[in-house]
Every structure is written in structure tokens, then in C-alpha cells.
């Protein structure tokens, strides 16, 4: 209802003109959206992309799923290798898939899962209270080395921005997994439909370097 601002007052003939203009200019185009599907969605294209990037961990405070308020820097840079993703509890299509992948990664890491810190950052922090995240973690069988983090809207956005994961709104989020061997090392960025094996392989390769 933007009546205040649009001094537009299309009478019916203006509307007709508008229609005709559309017709005349574009009548030959047809809506073939099927053909304009981005390559990444075609089955023969790689399901995900891999890049190596350096990021500066933001100095914000976060709240872990156990309710503890902690400096994010310390949590992330405690020396352990990190595998990180971004989720929110009320997301019903992509996030279960992402969390499923994480869960598989945890299993497939085997003994190594005790050395790795798995980090899930909520991008809907006001809704994702520690209690909600604990429940969510349980649903995906998160072990002691897989933590969930929430905080203020500001701290969540700061973290998303620091890792080029900010898309303006939780509903715009895309599938992203970040892997890093140790503090100070660059991050590997896996974007798209990432399978658990690819994540584990990435970790193994990085930790050998």
C-alpha cells in the first residue's frame, strides 16, 4: 500500500497502453524458464564449488548451546581444526540437509571426530535460543565436539559477514561449509550440494599439509 509515495494514477486507458507497450515490445519472447536454469543445477555440472580463502575471525561474543557466553575468537581459534556451517532451526528444506551432512561427517571422521571442532552458527539467533539449539543438536546426534552458537542479531551478522556468508536474510541463505586445519591457516570454502565424503576428504587433505 504505497499510496503515499507513488503519485501514479493509472486510468484504464493508461493501463491499456501499458499492456500494449508490453505486447508490442516483447510479444516474441516466450517464457521458457526451463532453459534458463543455471548450470549448477543441471545434474552433469559439479554439485558444489571449492575455493580457498583467508578470513579474519570477528571478535564478538556468542552463546553456546549450553547457555555459556563466550568470545567467538577463543572458540574458533582454540587450536583444533574447524568444520563450520550456518543453519537455523526453523528452516525446513536446506538446513536439515546441511545438518544431515554434518552428522554424516561426524560419523565418517571416525576417531578423528574427537580432534575436530564442528561449529554450527545460527543465522536466526533471536529465535534459536540455547534450548532450541540443544534440541536441534540432539535431533542430528551432535557429539561433544559439535557445538551450536547463537547470540545477538549483530554478532550473528558480523560472523556471517566475516565469512562471506551474509545474504541479507535468513531465507536467502545458501548451502556453505568451511574447513580449516588450524588457526592462522586459510579456509576451504565448499559451496553448494556438498556430500559428506567431500568434507571428510577436505579435512584429511588439509591436516596432512
Amino acid at each position, binding site marked *: 500500500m*504505497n499510496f*503515499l509515495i507513488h503519485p501514479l494514477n493509472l486510468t484504464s486507458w493508461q493501463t491499456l497502453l501499458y499492456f500494449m507497450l508490453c505486447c508490442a515490445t516483447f510479444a516474441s519472447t516466450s517464457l521458457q524458464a526451463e532453459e534458463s536454469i543455471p548450470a549448477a543445477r543441471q545434474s552433469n555440472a559439479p554439485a558444489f564449488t571449492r575455493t580457498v580463502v583467508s578470513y579474519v575471525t570477528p571478535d564478538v561474543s556468542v552463546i553456546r548451546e549450553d547457555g555459556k557466553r563466550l568470545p567467538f575468537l577463543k572458540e574458533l581459534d582454540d587450536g583444533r581444526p574447524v568444520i563450520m556451517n550456518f543453519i537455523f532451526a526453523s528452516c525446513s528444506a536446506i538446513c536439515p*540437509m546441511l545438518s544431515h551432512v554434518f552428522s554424516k561427517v561426524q560419523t565418517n571422521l571416525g576417531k578423528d571426530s574427537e580432534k575436530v571442532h564442528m561449529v554450527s552458527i545460527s543465522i536466526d539467533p533471536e529465535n534459536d535460543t540455547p534450548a532450541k539449539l540443544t534440541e536441534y543438536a540432539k535431533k542430528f546426534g551432535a557429539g561433544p565436539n559439535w557445538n551450536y552458537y547463537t547470540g545477538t*542479531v549483530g554478532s550473528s551478522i558480523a560472523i556471517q559477514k566475516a565469512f562471506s556468508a551474509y545474504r541479507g536474510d535468513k531465507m536467502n541463505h545458501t548451502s556453505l561449509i568451511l574447513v580449516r586445519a588450524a588457526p592462522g591457516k586459510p579456509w576451504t570454502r565448499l559451496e553448494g550440494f556438498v556430500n559428506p565424503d567431500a568434507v571428510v576428504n577436505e579435512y584429511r587433505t588439509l591436516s596432512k599439509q
Partner: protein
Amino acid sequence: MLTPFILRQLKISALLMPILCSTLFGAVDAIAQTASAPANLVEQGRRIYLEGIDGTGNPLQGVRADNARLVGAQAACVNCHKRSGMGSVEGDILIQPITGNYLFNPDKFQLATMDPRTGKKFNLTHAAYTEESLALAITSGVNNSGRKMHPLMPNYPIDKSDMAALSAYLKELSKEWSPGVSKDNIRLATVITPEVEGVRRKAFVDTLQKAVMQKNGSTLTSQNKKGRRHMISAAEMVLGTERTWTLDIWELQGAPETWGAQLEEKYKAQPVFALLSGLSNSTWEPIQNFCENTQVPCWFPSSSLPPATESFYSLYYSRGVNLEADVLAKYLSGNKKPKRVVQIRRDDIIANEAAKRLNTSLAAVGITSEDRVFKAKADEPISIQQVTNGLTSDDVTVFWLRRTDLTELGKSTPPPVKAVYFSAEMAGGEQGIPSSWQSITHLIYPYELPDKRQSNLTNFHAWQTMKKLPLIDEPLQAEAFFAVEFLTETLAEMLDNIYRDYLIERSENMLSRNEAIKSEQQVRERVMWSKTGSTAKQQGTSIYPHLGLGVNQHFASKGAYIVGFTKEGKLMADSDWIVP
């Protein structure tokens, strides 16, 4: 006047041209004419779709491209394609509508906005599905254009009977417009409960009716050829799916126990598509129950006491006084824990619930609390002397009172306590706080702070001034106005798919994004048309700092500030935004 704005709209219509032509010259009837399948088959399909239980009563099994197995509720179609079957957008993944209309009758030009605001994305066109091609899509993930679909869509190795059941269910799903909807009109009602003060009732009804009139005035229909376009969506304009609204006022009477029956009776006499806004100083539970049972959306009522259990059809601004109680408990549990909290209230349902909640939350953080209740009957004035016995400067008092009672309090001096807290939710903001009490007074404040709020509400205030609507209760009137605006925008993006479930799903998906985009747009337009008014940064269009919804997330604002007064009587924040 081809401003960049309009040019952008034209570009969008380019994509819509074929639709336009087919709509102009073809049939507009959106209702599929298919013979109905037996009820038990549809029921079998419903269980697969919504619950993930197959025809033999076992959990549905789905296999994703990475071989991950989805079982039972996790595999249910509803997770992705939604209750309405209209699909959704998550990130850059389009989850297609799969109702019978969309699968089997694409020649009717079923069109759904899949990524509003970018103005580019709609559902993909395809040839009509057949039973065979649908089975192939569901079992092997190849759509009827022969394309291997996005790996998010699982493969379901289901048998013939389950396939027939699914197909039967999909054909029934969102088959026709919901009740209360016709080709060019949508019927709505607003509920007002009996105990609401006359002044607020009038301010509320006036605001709502004027906003709806304004909406109708800008809706272009065959009757209203001079409608001043609101230009929400070019697709809507080209498709001519705009509808005017009829607003009924449903005034309830008597005790809350009887409201359910009254609502059912009113609904039976005149079905409505949704309840728009609403006003109550009492419990909202009977209304939420009605909405859930009748499957009618309950769209952002101004209620201080929404039921704690969230439901699919009800959307709220916040948890009301329950939220306030939690915020205050969290605030008081900080560094300067008070020895004792004394809660003072009338014997009224909202105040009682608020006090109960605060008692529980205070107990959890180890603060003792005590309850005191005014003896005054509902229509008698309160007297502060009844409740101040033994209060000391170690005590913190919390008054759960409405604005009318605050005026009464102002006639006496404040009690000799450390601090006094009021509920902004119950008092309708800070306006009623007696100035003689301000030095020790704080408010639990679920709204945006005044400076930022004025900028967020610039359009509302300009409108309300233009309409000569006196500002009686800013939170209430701003909420009613927002409810109309957001419904206008959400319905516009739904095009011709006016289904109740879809309305809820879209608002879950769109609210926070819509707020961000709209704020930006309002600032830009204010500059562009150089209307008077600030060009200050704007973070939303409601009285709350930010709003957001999601699946099972139906309270849009989740926190509150604690505020106090400066010597000059200006509001100032004592705390950050607290989310309990």
C-alpha cells in the same frame, strides 16, 4: 513519467507477456475440473504428504542424491513443498508448486511468484504431467522435461497404490480459492473482545477501516477503474489478480468460554478468508482455537496474551506480557539482583498471567517475589494505599496496569521503593506514565526506542495525519496499520493463488525480507519525491525493532528493552535489546 522504478516494472512484465496474452484471450478460471477420487485414497495420500507414513502404515523412505536416507516425517513432502503444495524458495533453490492445478493443468497458466522482489523468478513452466511422468519424477527424480532435478528432491521408491494416493491427494490440494474469496473480492473480519475500552476500540476500528478503504481505493478492479495503483507487483497488475477487501467487525460478547461458539456462528453466517488484526484486553485463546479448528489465518491481532502454544494459523507480533515477564526476570537477574520483587495488579486475566509468569521466571533465578492485588472492581478506581504496606527502599515493584489506572496512580506519590516497573504492553507505551513518578520509573518496552521508531513509522504517521486520525494509542494503531499493509503485500505476491495455508507460508518466508526491502524503498522514495519527513535510516515499518517469522516461528518480535526517563522526561534505554 518513466522513472527508474517504472522501468524496472516494465522489464518484469517482459517475462510475463505470454501469460498476459493467454490471460486476456484464454480462460481465467483457475479451478481445475477433475473428478474427485475416493476419500480413503486421498487420506492415504495425505498421510504420505504431511506425515511421511506410507499406505502400509510404515515410515515413508526417501533417498537423496548423496544416498542420504530420509525416513518418516523427515521425508514428508510437506517439509519442502509446504502444506499448500505451493512450494517455496530457500536460498537459490526453487521448490516447485506441485498441486494438481500446477502439475496437470499448466495450460491454465498457473503462475506463482517464486522469488518476490527480484521480480524475475516464477515457477518453471512445463508440459502437463501425466500419471506416468509424475511417477517417474517421484521415483527417480527426473521431471517431465527429462531433466534430472535438483539433488534436494529425494527419490521415493513407492508402490503403485501409494503413487495413486499421492496423485489423488495432490489433485485435491489447493484446488480452489479458500472460502471468503471470489474472483475480485476477499472477505475478512476483525475480532474485538467485549472488555476493550471504548476509546481504544474506536481508535482501532477507525484505523483499520480507513486503512482498508485506502487499500480498496488503490485497487484496480472492473468497478474501480480509477484505482490508484499500489504497484506491489507487476505480475499482479498484468494478471489482474488484485482483489478488493470487505471487512466485517466481529464484536464478541460475554465470557471467554462463549466466544468460540459466537465465532463459529458468525463464520457460518458469513465465511471469511482470514481474521485481520484484532483487539483484546483478555485471553486470546478462544480465538486462536477457532482459527486453528476452522483453518482460518489469524493475522497479527493486538493481543497481550497469545496462548503459549504456537499454532499454524495464528501469527502474532510478540508473546505479549509473557515475553515482558521473561525479559524483566532476565534483566533483574543481572548484576544488581533485588532482594524482593513485589508485583501489583488488578485481578484481571492478563495481569494475573503476567504475574504468574514473572513469579516462575524470578524463582528460577533465585529472586523472591510477592503478589498484591487491588481490591477495586473492574469499574472502580484503584487506590495505591491498599498495596504499599511495608514497602521499603530495598524493594522493586512491578505494576501490571493499564493506562486508565496509571492516571489514577499519578494522583498519589510513588511508594518509597528502589524502582518501579511498568508494562509498556499493558500501558500502551510510555504516554500514560505520571510525570511525578518518572524519576524511579522504568518500563519493560517491547517496542523500538522513540527516535528510531519515529523514522520507521514515518509513513504511518504521514498517513494517519492525512486521514485526520487522532493518535490515541500508537502501538495499537501502528500495529493495525502494519497488519493491513503486510497483508496487502503478501496477497499481492500470491497472485491468483489465494489459499489460506499459502498465506501463512508466504508470510513465514517473507516477513523479515519484506521489512528490510520496504524500509530501504521508503527511504529512497522519500528522497525521490522529496516529501517532507526525515530521510533518516529506517530499519522496519512497524513499531518493533525488527520482525521475523519462520516455520513454527509465529511470534515476530522476540525481545524488549528496559527503559527509564531522563530528567527532561525523555525515554532512555537502561538496557540493550534483551531476548530471553
